[in-house]
């Protein structure tokens, strides 16, 4: 977008976009955040993180008739490392104007949403950075944004996948790596970073979507003397405190706040040199997207020692709590607890476990689980539920306003946590030995925290979608895509898709036909009802 167009757009002169439908604006920023119908324009479909679609063409009465429309096997998708995980489609595709945009590490594709035909493929040069996954791309106007594993923010032309510019957002030599789908808020592109193997500080940045230049930088750790610094013993620990920001946050336009989860403190498993709560790691934070200033925070795991990043989507919804209408934010956190807060103020409303964690002595007055010092990693091993993989992880949850239930893929798992560091503890400083990998789809009553029902899905590798058609979509770990009744968890439909679901499914309507699109270990697949 030219400077002049940007000016006009800022003045609200949208007619220009209408006059030049393709060259001007494929995705006007003002249209992002609407309930997802014909488009799925952001990582979570809209800004709320609910992953709830208002579409009803596919519904409980006809879901049994769903059939496969196309399968797309990504071209030239070989990505080395990580025992093959890297090639899994963990990204949530965007769908804008009938085109799907999705990624795996080092690769972005544009695919025709109606037919599954590849329109273009962008390949980034290989790098030594960790290739663990790519959550997807972001779109603003005619441009896409992709975080490379070695932390370049790359702007691509959505039309043909050519590179407009690339900007470094973190230093991969220090062991940062990047996976996130950026969040677009008006003229801000919010990018997060990952990598907790060498005690780097975490941060969040806003970049100008036109130029890629930094607009603001928010540090997960305070500087000496600032509020929060009293939760660290010294400058050394504070400046190497971790807290990665590797999952896409959410946004409330009315409050003008973005909501972000932060990762675990460092050194990961050794806590002796970082006594204290270690703010603002393992927290949900509310930031002003124009300034990066923090409005409030709530720490879900004070002084974490188990690698339980609190980066799970902070899901926003407006609903009653104890009889009073509230603007709420909910998180099913990796530490095994569900949290409900007032998102205007950060006031704590409810904490409830959704598995049976064994690491806490109970809740404090603020509703935070109190870590049991006996359950910290030890040299001879400490048996803890959940494992470092967590009671849940990056797997997208969903909130269905019709059922009033919060759904997530959860795992009642155990691990033996060891401390290994000799001398000064650095990096992970320990490791856990996984025992089991259970998995259930759970429905949580946000008003009480009670788990209404559980549905066994074997293990957990993917996420969820709910729709106004009275459906919750998930995948098990035996290659089945399933649709369940939101109220009961009963299976309404399943299809064996050959591989496991590996992302959060999306849905959108094109030419009057509702599509369901999801990723697997090696394909992007579309389902729909038969054409009448």
């Amino acid at each position, binding site marked *: 977008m030219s400077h002049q167009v940007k000016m006009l757009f800022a003045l609200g002169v949208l007619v220009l976009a209408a006059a030049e439908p393709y060259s001007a604006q494929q995705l006007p920023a003002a249209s992002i955040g609407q309930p997802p119908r014909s488009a799925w324009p952001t990582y979570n479909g809209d800004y709320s993180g609910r992953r709830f679609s208002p579409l009803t063409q596919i519904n409980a009465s006809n879901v049994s008739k769903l059939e496969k429309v196309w399968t797309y096997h990504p071209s030239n998708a070989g990505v080395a490392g*990580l025992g093959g995980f890297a090639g899994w489609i963990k990204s949530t595709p965007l769908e804008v104007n009938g085109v799907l945009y999705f990624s795996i590490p080092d690769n972005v594709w544009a695919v025709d949403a109606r037919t599954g035909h590849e329109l273009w493929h962008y390949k980034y040069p290989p790098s030594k950075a960790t290739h663990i996954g790519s959550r997807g791309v972001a779109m603003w106007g005619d441009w896409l944004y992709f975080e490379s594993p070695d932390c370049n923010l790359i702007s691509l032309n959505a039309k043909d996948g050519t590179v407009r510019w690339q900007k470094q957002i973190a230093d991969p030599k220090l062991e940062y790596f990047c996976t996130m789908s950026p969040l677009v808020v008006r003229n801000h592109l919010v990018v997060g970073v990952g990598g907790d193997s060498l005690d780097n500080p975490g941060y969040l940045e806003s970049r100008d979507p036109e130029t890629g230049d930094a607009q603001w930088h928010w540090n997960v750790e305070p500087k000496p003397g600032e509020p929060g610094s009293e939760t660290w013993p010294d400058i050394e620990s504070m400046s190497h405190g971790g807290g990665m920001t590797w999952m896409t946050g959410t946004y409330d336009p009315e409050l003008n706040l973005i909501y972000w989860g932060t990762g675990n403190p460092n050194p990961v498993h050794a806590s002796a040199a970082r006594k204290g709560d270690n703010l603002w790691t393992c927290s949900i934070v509310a930031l002003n997207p124009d300034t990066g200033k923090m409005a409030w925070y709530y720490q879900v795991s004070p002084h974490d020692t188990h690698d339980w990043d609190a980066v799970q989507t902070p899901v926003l919804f407006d609903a009653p709590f104890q009889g009073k209408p509230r603007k709420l934010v909910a998180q099913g956190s990796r530490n095994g607890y569900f949290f409900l807060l007032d998102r205007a103020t950060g006031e704590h409303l409810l904490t409830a476990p959704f598995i049976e964690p064994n690491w806490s002595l109970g809740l404090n007055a603020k509703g935070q689980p109190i870590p049991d010092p006996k359950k910290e990693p030890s040299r001879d091993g400490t*048996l803890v539920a959940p494992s470092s*993989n967590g009671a849940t992880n990056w797997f997208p949850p969903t909130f269905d306003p019709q059922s009033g239930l919060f759904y997530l893929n959860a795992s009642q798992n*155990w691990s*033996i946590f060891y401390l290994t560091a000799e*001398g000064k503890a650095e990096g992970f400083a*320990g490791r856990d030995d996984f*025992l089991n990998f259970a998995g259930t789809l759970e429905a949580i009553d946000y008003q009480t925290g009670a788990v209404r029902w559980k549905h066994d899905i074997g293990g957990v590798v993917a996420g969820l979608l709910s729709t106004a058609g009275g459906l919750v979509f998930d995948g098990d770990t035996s290659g089945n895509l399933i649709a369940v009744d939101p109220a009961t968890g009963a299976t309404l439909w399943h299809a064996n898709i050959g591989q496991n679901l590996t992302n959060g499914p999306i849905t959108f309507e094109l030419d009057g036909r509702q599509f369901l699109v999801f990723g697997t270990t090696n394909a992007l697949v579309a389902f729909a009802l038969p054409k009448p």
Partner: protein
Amino acid sequence: MLLSTIFLALPLVAQFGPASPPDPAIERGRQAFISACAFCHGTEATGRSAPDLVRSSVVLHDEHGDQIGPVILNGRPERGMPAFNYTPEQIADLAAFLHSRAAATANRFSYTISGLLTGDAAAGKGFFFGAGKCSTCHSTTGDLQHIAAAYEPVDLQRRMIYPVPTYMDSMMGKKTKPAPPVKVTVVLPSGQTESGVLEHRDEFKVVLKDASGQHRVLNAEGAKVTVDDPLAAHEQLMAHITDRQMHDTLAFLETLK
């Protein structure tokens, strides 16, 4: 739990594999570092009166001594570091050592887990034959004879709690015994009964190997599936055993060399 899930990949594992064989340059660098640098930077280069070099930006940006070399040759007089008149080979050795320290720190799968034998073997024996009910299924002179010779303590401790090979075993090149067979009986809606060794189970199907060795794929919907899983007792144990009991029982099993 379903058998098919046990081998599930871990989405969050960053790097795999044991450490590669030692490079002689690293060892030479270590010796040089200990004699010239360790007094200020610490023997493991994690810092003492002088900075930590493991998570140092200079070291992490260095390629074969190109960043480290000038610092060694010129010193940092303003911070009290003297200059060292080292040859390019000596600098390369020091760089190799420092890179190895950073790599070893960053790769958690190269960490050595040790010091597990803190328990009381006598108390562990008591648990084994008593509250733990281990002797219900296991025998110290039968299946567990010489068990301590078959596994490292870390693997023995894990398998004691839940004796199933994990994805990590294969990624780290460990050879572990497969999980014990699970017997399954399926009563189909027709009343027909099938039984055998469970090979797969999900919500929609059960796969078993029957007595004749035939693989049978059965529709699980509407069927009554009964599983006799020898791991069920371990699942209960996992949720209730204390760390003390775990360490004591490991100490007892370690006597079974």
